[in-house]
């Protein structure tokens, strides 16, 4: 028994130096190769935004921009083809509002489920879980008709409201809030706090981590969403930035340079936010999502 245990460990030691070097080489080679695959399209997006269509469609393919032109950015920001700055602002308004509303609704319902016993709770939980499985595509047509009837077509509210009730968010916040100790609340009640006060002064601050994760998730979804804003928003002044960029992809002509420039401008702030809070956001985000 003992011998058998020793042998593999022994050979492990012996191969170590040489094999470790080989192993490390392979590991880094794979990682760098993948980094290249991921990175090159981004690089091409960046350099392509300084190229004319003629330069993009020429040989040999050049990942850099040897003769950069600012023309794409000038035309994009001057609003000559699309009101791009306005569309970026629209995207910000929609994404921020949607995040705020989703967070508010989700944390309230999560709090209700986590910290109270009430009639119908079990039924509502099962009901919510059951409907959770229904894909949103089912609702698209009636939702659109409703938006038309309510006069919300081509308005930001028409985009924001239907997206602000997230069953996922409700569950997520319930999970986060259920661990808040009940003694804290009882103490608060003795001190004369209202139920709303308990939620606002204890529940919210103690689940800040979960709220920030949900906020990032909702914000990213709203910022990059295409389908629902495409259905609701009707005029270029009200478009979000992805719809605006898609309109530059025309029947006879594709304004690649302008699209790539616009894509770069829209992606950069998000990347910077993630770089700034990288490890925290990334860890929480994935752990939060996996734990859902």
């Amino acid at each position: 028994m003992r011998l058998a245990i020793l042998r593999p460990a022994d050979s492990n030691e012996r191969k170590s130096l040489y094999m470790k070097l080989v192993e490390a080489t392979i590991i880094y080679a794979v990682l760098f190769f993948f980094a290249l695959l991921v990175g090159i399209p981004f690089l091409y997006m960046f350099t392509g935004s300084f190229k004319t269509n003629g330069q993009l469609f020429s040989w040999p393919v050049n990942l850099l921009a040897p003769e950069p032109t600012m023309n794409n950015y000038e035309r994009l920001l001057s609003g000559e083809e699309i009101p791009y700055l306005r569309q970026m602002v629209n995207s910000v308004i929609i994404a921020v509002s949607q995040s705020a509303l989703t967070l508010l609704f989700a944390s309230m319902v999560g709090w209700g489920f986590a910290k109270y016993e009430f009639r119908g709770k079990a039924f509502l939980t099962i009901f919510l879980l059951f409907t959770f499985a229904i894909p949103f595509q089912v609702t698209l047509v009636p939702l659109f008709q409703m938006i038309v009837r309510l006069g919300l077509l081509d308005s930001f509210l028409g985009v924001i409201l239907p997206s602000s009730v997230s069953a996922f968010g409700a569950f997520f916040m319930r999970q986060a809030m259920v661990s808040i100790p009940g003694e804290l609340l009882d103490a608060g009640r003795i001190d004369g706090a209202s139920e709303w006060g308990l939620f606002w002064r204890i529940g919210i601050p103690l689940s800040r981590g979960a709220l920030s994760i949900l906020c990032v998730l909702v914000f990213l979804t709203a910022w990059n969403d295409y389908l629902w804003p495409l259905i609701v928003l009707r005029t270029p002044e009200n478009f979000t930035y992805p719809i605006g960029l898609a309109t530059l992809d025309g029947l006879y002509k594709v304004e690649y340079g302008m699209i790539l420039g616009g894509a770069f401008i829209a992606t950069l702030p998000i990347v910077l936010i993630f770089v700034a809070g990288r490890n925290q956001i990334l860890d929480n985000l994935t752990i939060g999502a996996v734990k859902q």
Partner: protein
Amino acid sequence: MFGRGRKIAPYLFISPFFVGYAIFFLYPVIQSLQLSFYRQVGLTNAPRFIGFDNYIRLVSKDALFIKALSNTTYYALGSILIIVPLALLLALILHSPKLRFREFFRFLYFTPNITAGVVVGIIFGLVFEEQYGLVNNLLLAPLGIDNVRWLRDSRWIMPAVILLGVWKWTGINAIYFMVGLQNIPPELKEAARVDGATRPQVFWHVTLPLLRPILAFVLTVAIIGSYNLFAEPAILVGPEGGPNNAGMTMTMYLYNRGFRELKMGYASAIGYSLAVIILILSVIQLILIRAFRED
């Protein structure tokens, strides 16, 4: 405003959400079921009751629907079969001890995930361009492979979309797996090694079974994501899915019928068909995972 009544407080807390949920989700879900039994073209025309005609037409006469369904399934299978092993491999590498630049790689692999589908669709239009594109010129030409007509040859369109999916989603899935790996107590693996297990054996018999919850999560997200696929292929090959409609997904098909041709009843029937498909897939997946658990 909530007073002190612990009786009514919970209802006040949950009501904003449930009112919104009822208006913007439950009502449309029911309305959609009703509408799917009607023929309605346009927003203002009167709907006409036609029973199961829309559904019958979908499965028996609508070749495009069947095509969209098979395209989407192709994408789901293809992307999952590539992404999951690849992501697992990357996660194992990223998890190896004393790795330098770990955070840099992790962040870089994650970035495609925060890029809008429209933007990805446009960039990959250039990546897969036949004559001047990156894949043909930088990857295939050095290997002596002739230009592949990625976006024109209907056989290559879905592979192109799948590669786009691999680019966009492998990183985030690798990060999910990393979380799973971190949660595996190192003692378990060490114990196995001590018992004489080789590395592959440890992987198969210790690591993989313990990753099962993460695997289930990744698969669920991937399946739902596949059936939601819209912006990327719509931009990459056009709203009709390009040559032979090879890039048309279920959601694109629903959008085209409902919001371009304004066939409201028909589009509702497509939505419900989609729901049934996802339901069936979820049940199958549950059964499979349960079966794994028993062995």
